[in-house]
């Protein structure tokens, strides 16, 4: 009794679609078979709210009079790309000014989304058609042209857990790692995480409509470092850092409730991004996929104190208990991505679909298969 996207959308339009969050359906699966779930549930909403460094935004400032070909650009003192035509730029989330390393591109994006004025300063050499050489002014989302968030790599399918066996305190993008295995940081939303509910990307592809930082955004490509060759556990879950998504959305529809600039000590700036992905329960296989529970999601333990070696394996139920036993010790575990926010996002997306405000999209092109990752070889 498989369903099509059109059948599900018809139900959504009539306000009759049955929508559950991924946590709710995982709970349901304790007593129901995939076949029963297929019969009952149409859409499952998944979400995550975590630090995603490979994020950013395209902005078009509009032309001044006389015009300038902006070749060097700063926003609130943060240098951003001067390599896109005369008045376009890309603000990378991790862009920053070494003089003020705790405020970076992600904070500029947050300030713009908050509706604040941002100082734009730009320099050009001056050309026949763009005579101006310098401009300094205030901009906001009200007065510029396009403002499009564009994140080349978000929503990692799974991620290693970070620990530190060395005797030094380490400051990393996985947070502060205390010496001698005193803590462990994990970053995935577990059973609520988008790509863990559709591990082979059967329904998530180019053109999939999603929740992005409060806006209705889209999956626009496979994310960078998209890796299909990670080992699977017995429940079909890829272990470690596997698939990723490239996402885009209109910044004017976004809210700072669902995105934040952040600074990790002695590491740098990054951006917390809120992503919600709806998954249609098309057939029994998808019903089984969305039923995945934290106890069935394994990931590797990575030692940041010793060359990022993989030294163990743990599941998300154990991580969520607050303590894991490893190498004869009890290790305090803590998340790095916000489950409270992820749940809020899954609930909002559920509401949009239930009220008929959000229809599902079949992928325009599926995600690649058989990809693996190249390292960077030093050839000189």
């Amino acid at each position: 009794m498989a369903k099509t996207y059109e059948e599900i959308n018809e139900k959504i339009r009539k306000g009759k679609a049955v929508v559950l969050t991924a946590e709710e359906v995982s709970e349901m699966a304790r007593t129901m078979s995939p076949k029963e779930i297929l019969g009952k549930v149409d859409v499952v909403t998944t979400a995550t709210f975590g630090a995603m460094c490979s994020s950013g935004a395209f902005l078009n400032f509009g032309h001044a009079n006389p015009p300038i070909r902006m070749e060097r650009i700063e926003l609130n003192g943060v240098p951003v790309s001067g390599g896109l035509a005369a008045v376009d730029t890309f603000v990378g989330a991790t862009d920053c000014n070494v003089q003020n390393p705790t405020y970076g591109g992600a904070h500029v994006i947050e300030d713009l989304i908050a509706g604040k004025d941002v100082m734009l300063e730009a320099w050009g050499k001056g050309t026949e058609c763009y005579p101006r050489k310098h401009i300094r002014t205030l901009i906001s989302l009200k007065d510029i042209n396009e403002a499009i968030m564009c994140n080349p790599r978000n929503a990692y399918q799974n991620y290693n857990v970070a620990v530190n066996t060395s005797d030094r305190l380490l400051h990393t993008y996985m947070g502060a790692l205390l010496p001698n295995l005193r803590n462990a940081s994990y970053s995935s939303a577990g059973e609520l995480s988008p790509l863990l509910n559709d591990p082979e990307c059967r329904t998530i592809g180019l053109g999939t409509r999603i929740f992005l930082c409060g806006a209705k955004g889209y999956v626009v490509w496979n994310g960078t470092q998209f890796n299909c060759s990670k080992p699977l556990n017995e429940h079909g879950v890829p272990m470690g850092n596997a698939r990723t998504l490239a996402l885009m959305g209109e910044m004017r529809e976004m809210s700072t409730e669902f995105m934040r600039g952040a600074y990790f000590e002695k590491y740098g700036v990054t951006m917390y991004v809120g992503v919600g992905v709806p998954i249609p329960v098309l057939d029994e296989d998808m019903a089984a996929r969305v039923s995945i529970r934290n106890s069935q999601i394994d990931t590797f333990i990575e030692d940041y104190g010793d060359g990022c070696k993989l030294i163990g394996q743990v599941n998300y139920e154990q991580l969520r208990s607050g303590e894991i036993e490893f190498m004869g010790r009890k290790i305090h575990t803590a998340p790095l991505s916000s489950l409270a926010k992820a749940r809020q996002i899954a609930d909002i997306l559920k509401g949009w679909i239930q009220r008929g405000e959000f229809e599902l999209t079949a992928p325009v092109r599926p995600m690649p298969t058989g990809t693996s990752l190249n390292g960077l070889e030093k050839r000189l």
Partner: protein
Amino acid sequence: MVKKVVVTFTAGSAGRSLTYELIKKYDIMLSIIKADIDAGRNGKLVLELDADEDHIRQAIEYMENCGVEVSPLENKIKYDNTRCISCGACTSSCLSGALSIQAPDWKVVFDPDKCIVCRHCVTACPLKLFSTDFAG
């Protein structure tokens, strides 16, 4: 009862012999959680006082009479919870258990009574929501 206080003293006040007097006169079990004293003998101490309530009150009065400023510890770590996203990063390095996050709601809770002003959270929070005026 156990009370944690921040004691601020200047060169003129009796900073040096203070801990000795507290133990002797008021029968207080005392631990120094943190000490920060400069060469001119200005400084701050974070003390944990363990005794009955009367003795603790008398001890605090005694210190104030000696010209040192005593304030409860909870004033010293500030946490702007209105901007908190409950990511949990701060809980990972808070070994005193003052910051915790757990089921069912996974929202971060700060219990100032347990805080030992180690300042780990000040650097650990990616949104910089903790601050303190105590030089670490």
